[in-house]
């Protein structure tokens, strides 16, 4: 009778890993969850934020440790690619993971997003359909507390409510901020429908969380816990007996004789190594560290796709001064969206586009330039007030296609504080996403015209959204994919990957809700099999 340290070892305590841990623990399985970084309570992050000089740096209030560096650490990610775009991404190494500093947009993919190849002839298809994942989308929305309006046509194509839902959203939509009302009033006549963006900032007290009160600080941390973050499921999992081991960096998955994974090795800050055995393993270390672990361990890669097909939502961003007060900053950091171009026939030629309306308190954006102009006193104050009331930013969420040369590998030479390789990324923007620029420009021109705007920052450069996808791609053929439809490695029957890295299409929506749905689904699979 083999002794195991646990039924399941989960590597990574972000929203996906912690949700899987919680479900497994509820089903009575023993779970050890490894986290490279430390545990930090919410109020401490708030304290760090308020005492930081770099408040628009979403990683700054979180610990950044030699053995658990975040993505902003100097030299941690060496990126090569295009001349006009420098790849940057944002992830944390802390209990609860990167959802501790997100804005919580919680869209579902559309049915066509699962069938990009069949419908539009580009990219890949998922090996499952929207209907297959729908029940877990619903469960994910309830676990996370998603606020939404089920009546919206989220495809922007003039349908009734879409995508189809088996039950309403768990929480009703928040009130519509004045700025969004103005957007709708001015852009509607030009053909752009402003719809509600589903998100996880609860609109009334839910699951021990207060309702969103417009602290306008979703990124880097919700000060009151209205907005979902992965530490909430970490706490729930630990309360059910999950063994959370912080400051434990997994560095090797050990293969056994029958090609099952038999153990994981992790390293402590003092350099000590620990070996854990388990019946099953779930890699949930987000989209860059997960393939790095697999590549370092030389497992799960008979397809040679591990680390490849790196996708992000690289897009454009326009900032302008409107000719009327909009007063962004009232409410949370993001409300509403324009989905008119989310699923058009032109997806056969170029990326779809979804527009985001930014709602940040803009004082730190407008003031430095005014100070440089030498303004002072009441002139300065009046200028701050005027510009803060009228500044507006609209950005695109655009999709990229999986390309084997867009990839992440363990860095050949650089090492971090744990002695493990850092990351090397090659990321080039393809013609598919570049091809959407003319269409986006036409829309941006209309937005500008609607508000008789003065340009502050034209959308000529590229900006990443830090949504990591594709690097452990899902498919129906073990020769060109890393995991099957159940997020199980083709090569190792007891190895699963809970990561947005499994997504074969990027679409134009934030991938986290999809990732959580997949994690819940793979947890169900594990519960059945263990």
């Amino acid at each position, binding site marked *: 009778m083999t002794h195991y340290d646990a039924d399941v070892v989960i590597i990574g305590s972000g929203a996906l890993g912690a949700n899987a841990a919680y479900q497994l623990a509820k089903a009575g399985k023993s779970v050890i969850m490894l986290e490279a970084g430390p545990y930090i309570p919410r109020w401490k992050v708030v304290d760090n934020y308020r*005492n*930081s*000089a*770099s408040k*628009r*740096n*979403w*990683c*700054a209030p979180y610990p*950044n440790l030699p053995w658990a560096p975040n993505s*902003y*650490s*100097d*030299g941690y990610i060496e990126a090569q690619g295009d001349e006009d775009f420098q790849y940057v991404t944002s992830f944390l190494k802390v209990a609860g993971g990167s959802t501790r500093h997100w804005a919580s947009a919680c869209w579902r993919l559309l049915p066509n997003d699962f069938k990009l190849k069949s419908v539009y002839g580009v990219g890949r298809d998922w090996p499952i359909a929207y209907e297959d994942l729908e029940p877990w989308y619903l469960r994910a929305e309830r676990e996370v507390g998603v606020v939404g*309006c089920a009546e919206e046509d989220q495809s922007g194509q003039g349908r009734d409510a879409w995508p189809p839902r088996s039950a309403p959203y768990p929480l009703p*939509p928040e*009130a*519509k901020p*004045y700025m969004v*009302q*103005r957007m*709708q009033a001015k852009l*509607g*006549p030009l*053909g*752009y429908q402003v719809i*509600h963006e589903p998100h996880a900032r609860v*609109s009334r007290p839910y699951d021990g969380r207060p309702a969103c*009160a*417009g*602290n*306008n*600080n979703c990124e880097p941390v919700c000060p*009151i816990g209205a907005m979902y973050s992965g530490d909430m499921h970490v706490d729930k999992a630990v309360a059910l007996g999950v063994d959370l081991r912080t400051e434990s960096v997994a560095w090797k998955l050990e293969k056994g004789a029958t090609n099952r994974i038999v153990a994981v090795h992790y390293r402590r800050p003092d350099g000590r190594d620990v070996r854990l055995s388990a019946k099953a393993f779930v890699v949930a270390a987000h989209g860059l560290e997960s393939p790095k672990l697999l590549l370092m361990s030389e497992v799960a890669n008979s397809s040679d796709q591990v680390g490849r097909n790196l996708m992000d939502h690289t897009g454009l961003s326009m900032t302008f001064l409107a000719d*009327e007060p909009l*007063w962004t900053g*009232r*409410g949370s950091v993001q409300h509403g969206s324009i989905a*008119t171009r989310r699923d058009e026939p032109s997806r056969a030629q170029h990326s779809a586009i979804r527009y985001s309306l930014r709602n940040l*308190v803009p*004082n*730190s954006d407008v003031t430095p330039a005014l*100070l440089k102009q030498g303004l002072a*006193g*009441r002139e300065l*104050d009046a200028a*701050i*007030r005027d510009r803060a*009331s009228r500044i507006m930013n609209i950005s695109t969420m655009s999709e990229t296609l999986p390309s084997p040369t867009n990839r992440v590998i363990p860095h050949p030479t650089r*090492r971090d*504080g744990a002695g493990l390789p850092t990351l090397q990324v090659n990321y080039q923007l393809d013609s598919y996403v570049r091809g959407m620029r003319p269409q986006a*420009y036409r*829309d941006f*021109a*209309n937005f500008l*015209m609607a508000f*008789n705007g003065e*340009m502050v920052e*034209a959308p*000529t450069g590229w900006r990443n959204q830090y949504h990591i996808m594709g690097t452990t791609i899902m498919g129906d053929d073990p020769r060109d994919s890393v995991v099957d439809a159940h997020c199980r490695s083709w090569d190792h029957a007891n190895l699963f990957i809970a990561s947005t890295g499994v997504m074969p299409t990027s679409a134009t929506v934030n991938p986290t809700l999809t990732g959580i749905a997949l994690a819940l689904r793979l947890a169900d699979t594990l519960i059945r099999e263990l």
Partner: protein
Amino acid sequence: MNRRHFLRLMLASGIIISVPVTGSLAAPADSENRFHRVSQALTGRQQLDPAISQRLYALLTRQNPLFPQRLAQLAERLSRVEARPPEALLAALSEEDVDTALAIITPWYLGYTGNPATTRATDDAQFVSFLSALMYEPTADITPRPSYSQRGSDYWQAVPDGVTAPPMPANIHAWGKASPRAASSVTAPQPAWLAMVEGRARTHAEALHLPDVAEATNDAL
């Protein structure tokens, strides 16, 4: 976050910040008082927090050993000018004194010195204050200082105080089916606005003067 301290923990190569450290951090009291008085004069506020003054003075001196002299020079110049609002004070100063003045005003407004980075872990920004950062005061009645909520849920639907909302459809507050429908097709964009989006002009008036835009506009007429 003071990255210098974390760099000591990390194995990163190269330290970005090099900050000259002067001898003693304890400044003579009259320099601090002077700094406090000058700060109040230059920001137009009479109730700046003396503890923040102290902190900022120490920081500026640490960053620039010549700062105390510059401050003394500026203070002396200001003392020969009768009390007036900050913008008028600046107008009466030499270029060098204006530089010093701006080096003082800027951190009082922003709450930090230096240049904070958004996507790198290290930068040369140094924390001064958040609750005393003056840039949030001119808008404090309408928007919050980030992370400090001023009101409960859903207040953001109301028209902000002092704003006359242009006429909007009655159902503008609704989401979903009840919400106003957009036009069924998207308008074709106009050349001047397109030119601005392409980065070729900052205002519409400027854009109209671009040769291709002027031509396209003429064609359209």
